[in-house]
C-alpha cells in the first residue's frame, strides 16, 4: 500500500436539492491526499461544509460524486475502521464510561477473551485520564470528561483513520488545551491518520501537520493547504515561541478574512497542484499579528 496516498479524497462533491428541485453543491471537487499517520486540520468558516466532508469520509453521509479511498479501499458506509469523535460526546447516557468504551471494543476485538477486552478498555480509559471515573455515568461527569470517554472509545477501536469533528467546540479553553494535549500524546504513540475539523486557527497550527483551508460555500472546496513543519512530539510553549508561528497564523487568518470578503463572489476551485505546495504568503498578509490571546 502506498503510505503516501493512504487516504485519497478525489473530486468529492455533495449536492442537496433546493426547494425547486435543483441540485445545489455544498462541497464541490474537494481533493485531498493524506499520508499514513498524518494529522490534517480542515479549517473554514462555519457552514462552509467542513463537517459534510468529514461525515462523508465517516460514511454517515452518502456522497454525490467523486471518490473516497482509505487504505486502498473505497468508503462504503460507516465502520469502526474510521472512528469519529463528534462535537457533542454522544455517549449513551444509560451506560457507564466503561460500558460505553466496551461497546466498541466488543465489536472490534470479538476474538479476544473477556479479560483481554476488559484490560484493553481499562487501558484506553486510563490514557485519557479517566482511570478513576470508569464506572461513572455520563450525567455524573463534566463535558470535558465525557469528551475524554468519546476519545477513548474512538481510539480503542484501533481505527485506520480518526475523524475529529470539532471535538473541543463545546469546551472551555482550559479543558480544550488539556484535551488537545491528550489527543496529541495518543496520536504520537499510535500514529493514526487523523482529520481534524476546527475553526480555531491556533488549534489547527498546534495539532496538525498540514492545514487545509476551505473556501466558503456553496461549492466549497480546498482553498489552500499550509504545511506546518514543527517537529513532533510538540510542546505548546515551543510551538508558540517558534519564529514562524505568527506567520502561519497570519496566513490562515488572512485566508479566512479573504473568504469573508469574497463571500458573495464565486471562488474558483484550486487545482491539485496546490496540494503539498510550499508555504505561500498571500499578498494582503496581515503585518501585525492579531492581538488576541494565543492558544484559545
Amino acid at each position, binding site marked *: 500500500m502506498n503510505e503516501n496516498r493512504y487516504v485519497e479524497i478525489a473530486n468529492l462533491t455533495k449536492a442537496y436539492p433546493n426547494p425547486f428541485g435543483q441540485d445545489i453543491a455544498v462541497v464541490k471537487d474537494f481533493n485531498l491526499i493524506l499520508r499514513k499517520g498524518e494529522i490534517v486540520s480542515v479549517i473554514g468558516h462555519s457552514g462552509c461544509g467542513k463537517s459534510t466532508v468529514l461525515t462523508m469520509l465517516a460514511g*454517515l453521509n452518502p456522497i454525490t460524486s467523486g471518490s473516497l479511498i482509505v487504505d486502498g479501499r473505497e468508503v462504503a458506509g*460507516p465502520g*469502526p475502521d474510521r472512528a469519529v469523535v463528534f462535537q*457533542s460526546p454522544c455517549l*449513551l447516557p*444509560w451506560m457507564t464510561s466503561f460500558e460505553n468504551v466496551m*461497546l466498541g471494543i466488543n*465489536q472490534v476485538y470479538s476474538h479476544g477473551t473477556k479479560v483481554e477486552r476488559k484490560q484493553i478498555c481499562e487501558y484506553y480509559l486510563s490514557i485519557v485520564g479517566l482511570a478513576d471515573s470508569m464506572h461513572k455515568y455520563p*450525567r455524573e461527569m463534566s463535558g470535558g470528561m465525557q469528551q475524554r470517554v468519546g476519545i477513548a472509545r474512538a481510539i480503542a477501536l484501533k481505527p485506520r483513520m480518526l475523524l475529529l469533528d470539532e471535538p473541543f467546540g463545546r469546551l472551555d479553553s482550559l479543558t480544550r488545551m488539556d484535551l488537545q494535549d491528550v489527543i496529541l500524546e495518543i496520536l504520537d504513540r499510535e500514529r493514526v491518520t487523523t482529520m481534524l475539523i476546527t475553526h480555531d486557527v491556533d488549534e489547527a497550527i498546534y495539532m496538525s501537520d498540514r492545514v487545509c483551508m476551505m473556501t466558503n460555500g456553496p461549492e466549497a472546496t480546498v482553498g489552500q493547504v499550509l504545511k506546518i513543519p514543527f517537529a513532533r512530539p510538540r510542546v505548546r510553549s515551543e510551538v508558540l515561541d517558534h519564529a514562524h508561528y505568527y506567520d502561519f497564523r497570519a496566513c490562515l487568518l488572512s485566508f479566512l478574512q479573504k473568504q469573508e470578503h469574497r463571500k458573495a463572489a464565486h471562488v474558483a476551485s484550486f487545482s491539485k497542484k496546490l496540494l503539498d505546495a510550499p508555504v505561500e504568503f498571500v499578498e494582503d498578509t496581515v503585518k501585525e499579528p492579531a492581538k488576541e490571546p494565543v492558544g484559545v
Partner: protein
Amino acid sequence: MSESTTDKIKYGLLKTIDISGFKVFDPVVRLLFGEEPTKQAVDIVKYLVTPIVFVLLCMALWTVIAPRHKTKSGEVPTPTEVWAAAVVNDTLNEREDEKETDFALSGEGREDAIMEVSAALIIKEAESVELKSDLLQIEKDVKAEITGKIAPLQEAYDRLSQKNRMIKAERETNIHSLAEGVASKKAASADLLQAIRDDKAATEAGRDAEKLIKEEINEVRNNPPKALKNAQLASNAVANEAGHLSKRLDYLKTGNRSLKVTEAEDKTVAALQKLEDASTPAAVLAAAKLVVGGEETAERIAEQRYPRTATIWFQVKRSLFTVFIGFIMAAVIAIPVGIMCGLNKVVMACLTPIISIFKPVSPVVWLLIFQIVVGAFFPDPENHPLFTFFASLPLVGGLGINPALVFSACTVAICAVWPALVNTALGVSSIDQDHMNVARVLRLSLWSRLFKIIIPSSLPLVFAGLRISLGVGWMVLIAAEALSSSDGLGKFVWDEYQNGSSHSFANIIFACFVVGIIGFFLDRIMILLQRSVSFDDGAAVV
C-alpha cells in the same frame, strides 16, 4: 468533603420522598433536620397545611350539603356514614375470614375453637337479651312520650276539623237557599256564584289548617328521640355479633370440612366391610364400587374451599388481579409492536389505520365483543384446563377465575394497549440521531442495536405510555365489571346499586374512594418504575 451520618440519612430520606412522588413532605423532613426552619415552616403552611385545610373544607361542605338532597335511595350519605360503611364492610370481611378458618379447622384446633366461640356466644347472647329488654323499655317510654306529645295536637286537630265541618254545613245551607232564591228569581245569580267560590276557598283554607296540625303530628311520630335509635343500633349490633358467632359454631360443629371428610371416610370403611362380607359377584362389585366412590368423595371434600361471600376486599383483590393480567397482556402486545412501528415506517403505515380506528372505540363495545368471542372458547368453563389450573394455584386460586375475568382482562388489555403502543413507537422513532450514528459507526448487529441502544433510549417514553395504560385499564375495568357482573369492585358497586338497602349509597361512595385510592397507588408505582429506568434523572410528571 465528608458527609456526616445525619446528612446521609437526611438526603437519603429526601431522595426517597422525591422518587416516590411525595415531594410535599420535603420541607417536613428538612424541618426535622433543622434546615432553615422559617423557610420550611412557610413551605409547610403553603403546600401541606393549606391543601389539608382545603380538603377538610370540602368534607365540611359535603357534610352540610349531603343530607339536604333527598334521593329515592335516601339521603346522600355524609362522610361519617361513608366511614361507617367502610367499617361495616371491613367487619364483614373479617367475619368471612373467621368462617373460612373455622371451615378448615380440624382436630384439637376445632375443639378449642368450639369452646372459645361457645363461651363468647353465651356472653353475647346474654348481652343481647339485656339490650333487647332495655330497648323494649325505651320503646315503651318513647311511645308514651310520643303519645303524650301527640294527644294535645290530636285534640286540637279534632276540634278544628269538627269546627270546619260545622262551618262547611252552614255555608252549604246558605248556598242551597241562595240557589232556591235564584231559581225563584229572588236573588242574583252572581251572588250564588260568589258564594260557591267563597265556599271553595274556605274549604281549602280549612284543609290547609288541618294539614298543618297533621304534619306536626307526623313530625313527632317520625322523629323519635335519638336514644331510641341508638338503643336500636346497639341492640342490632350485638344481635348481629351473636348471630355471627352462632354461625361460626355451625361451621365448627356441622359444616366443618374435617367432619365431612371423616364422614366420607367412615362410609368407605363401612363399604370395605361390606366388600369383605359379600359373597356373590354382583354384591362384591357393588361394594367395590362403593369403596372407590367413597374414596373419591373423601378426596374431593378434603380439597374443598370455603364458599366465601364476596366482600369488598375480595373484590379489590380480584380487580387488581384482573387489571394486572390485562395490563401485562397490553404491555406484551404494545411494546414489541410499538418498537416495530418506531423502527419501520412501513409497519407504522400499516398499523396507523388500525390504531386510529380502534383507539376511540368505547370499552363497553369491546366488552360485549370479548364476552361473545371469549365465551366461545370455554364451552364448559367448570372443567376447562385453564381454569382448573388457575384454581390450583396458591395465591390466586381463591379468586374464582372464570371466563368473566378473562374477557374483563381482554377488555382492559385492548383499551390499555393504545397509549403504550403509541408512546413506544414515539420513543423508538425519536431516538437521538447521534446515538444511532454511534451504532452505525460501530456496525452493531440488529440485536445489540435493539437492546443496547434502541430499547434503553426509549424506555422512559415506554414507561410513560405504560403508566397511562395502567390508568386507563383501571378505569375501564371498573366499568367492565359493573356491566358484565364479573366479580370485582365494579360488580360491588353495581350490586349495591341494584340492592338498594339503606347502606347502599354509602357503600357506593366508599367503593368510589377505594377505586380512587387504588388507582392513585397504581399510578405511583408506575412513576417509581419510570423514574428507575430513566437515565436522564427526569422529573416525573405528577
